[in-house]
């Protein structure tokens, strides 16, 4: 393939022209095109760090789960020494899957086809009838192991990449790590999964969900309007206006990243005022954190925060903590303070990946998280609430999964594909006064900047030569 061919589609369109950097528009065809999808598998899913699960899913030596990195099935396994390994779930012999189970425990993974056997770390052990040397003598055993991905654990989350010599995970997160730590590294014992993830298919291109994850706050007002009409936000505090309008919930600060990560930091003032009857500015950081602990934590657990965070981070956590956002390319997190009918708040912690399954299909994978140290009763409440609001039957996200397929259908029309996705609602504010955190930060009503930065990184990777 010539260098030129790599940078253009078969109809002559330059990859770089799929996005108009001046007018902040993205061609709608990106949400359905097979060629673009295939390039993404190499240039995005073959290059960036990808979320595969949480180490509490495989606590014991020999435990494994089967997950996906782009289109590729991978084996995520814990070896005898406790290390987590990620290997391509494809037998190097004839291409059969090494495991067809979603999860399990075994010291040796044996391909059911010809019996080639591998350790949890992907190392080739041998093939049956050893004296016949059925793997031949051309390649050494060391060369016949499973293809290994590079792995990192962050807050117990398992990330892997095929980019063996690429940027570290820390570099990939960049400034955004300062904020992600507030979600994933809060307590002494750390997070755990409530169970295996929910998994279901949505007939839409993965980017319909991916770009929304990069902190689209605006859609909440319309698509999730029921929350204000009959849902958790229909009861308002005194002096907070009437009706089903969710506009007030959309104010805060939004963090963008040159690597497409995004966090919506939503102002807690109204909730704290509702709980205490006081102006939040009269309360210390600690008082605010005890009044309204980070979602999924109790007031008793707030002491632990000091072990993990700087004063500046604690200030943000008590003022405008990150609550919804994404990690490039296909992750969304929701760490929500959900108002209850009795005026209290119960947290919901969820993490999704939108796994590409072809240009017009994605797998929605939804993990529900809890802190290990959270009392069992609160954990149970959180799991029920999260299931009822997010994921498969979630009353919020069932509206999202019904919307994305229409966007992919639109992108197939001869005329529709000529339209553009527009990210032209731009911030003109900058950081909130006194904001102590790093990164590209803007204050006010939610805007398009974070999603635009998501597309800019997509553009950077899709047009990069290597």
């Amino acid at each position, binding site marked *: 393939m010539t260098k030129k061919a790599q940078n253009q589609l078969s109809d002559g369109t330059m990859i770089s022209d799929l996005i108009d950097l001046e007018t902040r528009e993205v061609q709608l065809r990106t949400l359905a095109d097979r060629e673009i999808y295939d390039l993404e598998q190499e240039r995005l899913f073959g290059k960036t760090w990808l979320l595969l699960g949480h180490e509490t899913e495989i606590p014991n030596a020999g435990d494994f789960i089967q997950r996906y990195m782009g289109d590729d099935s991978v084996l995520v396994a814990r070896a005898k020494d406790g290390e987590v390994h990620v290997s391509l779930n494809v037998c190097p012999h004839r291409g059969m899957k090494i495991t067809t189970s979603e999860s399990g425990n075994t010291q040796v993974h044996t391909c059911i086809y010809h019996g080639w056997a591998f350790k949890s770390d992907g190392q080739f052990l041998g093939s049956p009838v050893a004296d016949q040397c059925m793997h031949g003598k051309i390649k050494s055993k060391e060369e016949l192991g499973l293809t290994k991905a590079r792995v990192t654990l962050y807050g117990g989350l398992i990330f892997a990449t095929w980019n063996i010599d690429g940027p570290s995970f820390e570099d990939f997160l960049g400034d955004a790590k300062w904020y992600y730590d507030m979600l994933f590294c809060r307590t002494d014992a750390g997070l755990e999964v409530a*169970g295996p993830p929910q998994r279901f298919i949505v007939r839409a291109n993965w980017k319909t969900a991916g770009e929304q994850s990069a902190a689209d706050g605006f859609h909440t007002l319309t698509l999730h309007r029921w929350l204000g009409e009959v849902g958790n936000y229909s009861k308002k505090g005194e002096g907070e206006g009437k009706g089903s309008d969710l506009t007030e919930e959309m104010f805060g600060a939004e963090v963008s990243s040159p690597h497409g990560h995004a966090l919506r930091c939503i102002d807690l003032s109204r909730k704290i005022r509702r709980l205490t009857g006081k102006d939040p500015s009269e309360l210390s950081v600690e008082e605010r954190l005890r009044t309204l602990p980070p979602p999924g934590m109790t007031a008793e657990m707030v002491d632990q925060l000091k072990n993990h965070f700087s004063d500046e981070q604690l200030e943000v956590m008590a003022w405008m903590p990150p609550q919804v956002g994404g990690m490039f390319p296909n992750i969304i997190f929701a760490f929500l303070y959900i108002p209850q009918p009795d005026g209290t708040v119960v947290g919901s912690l969820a993490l999704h990946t939108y796994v590409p399954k072809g240009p017009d299909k994605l797998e929605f994978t939804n993990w529900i998280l809890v802190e290990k140290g959270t009392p069992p009763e609160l954990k149970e409440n959180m799991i029920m609430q999260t299931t009822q609001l997010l994921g498969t039957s979630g009353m919020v996200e069932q509206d999202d999964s019904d919307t994305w397929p229409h966007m992919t259908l639109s992108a197939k029309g001869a005329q529709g594909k000529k339209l553009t996705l527009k990210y032209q609602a731009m911030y003109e504010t900058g950081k909130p006064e006194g904001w102590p955190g790093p990164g590209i930060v803007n204050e006010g009503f939610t805007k398009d900047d974070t999603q635009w930065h998501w597309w800019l990184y997509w553009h950077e990777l899709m047009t990069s030569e290597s």
Partner: protein
Amino acid sequence: MSAHNITTDEQSVPIAIGSETYNEMLQFYYTEASLLDNIRLEEWGQMLAEDLKYGVPIRQTRMVKDTDATVVRSVQHYHDDYRSIMGRILRLSGKSAWAEDPPSRVRRFVSNIQVSKRENSDEFEVVSYLLITRNRFDDDFFDLIPCERHDLVRKTETGLKLAKREVILDQALLGTPNLAIFL
């Protein structure tokens, strides 16, 4: 079948197919399917007991020796009680439940009903097969949701009430974009 079994240690007695009690139960299930298919959700809500537990476990593909692990209840697709189901009905009856507005065309085929009565109680354990066909918009295909339901149905002064339901789906990777419909 331990993975599918949600019955308690209490003794239960099989109810003969075709008996008066069985037919009464059959009527309950046909009525329920009809109300749900026709989106008469508030009327369906009246068939529910106020101590309802409603769950749809996750399924996992596992080896035969790990059959028990194919049904996962730690995290489920639905994890509800009476209050939350009524909340869902309220949402679906409101103005902005886009996932079902316009609604799916749904048909619930109920079959293979087996009933047993818990001794010394007014409660019946009912197992039924359910095949849901779901069609949306201009789709030229149907989402199929085959499953097995394990219910507890209680005889009360105001008729039969559903007190517990656990739905065992036949898919590990669910092929419909959401469960905005009741199973």
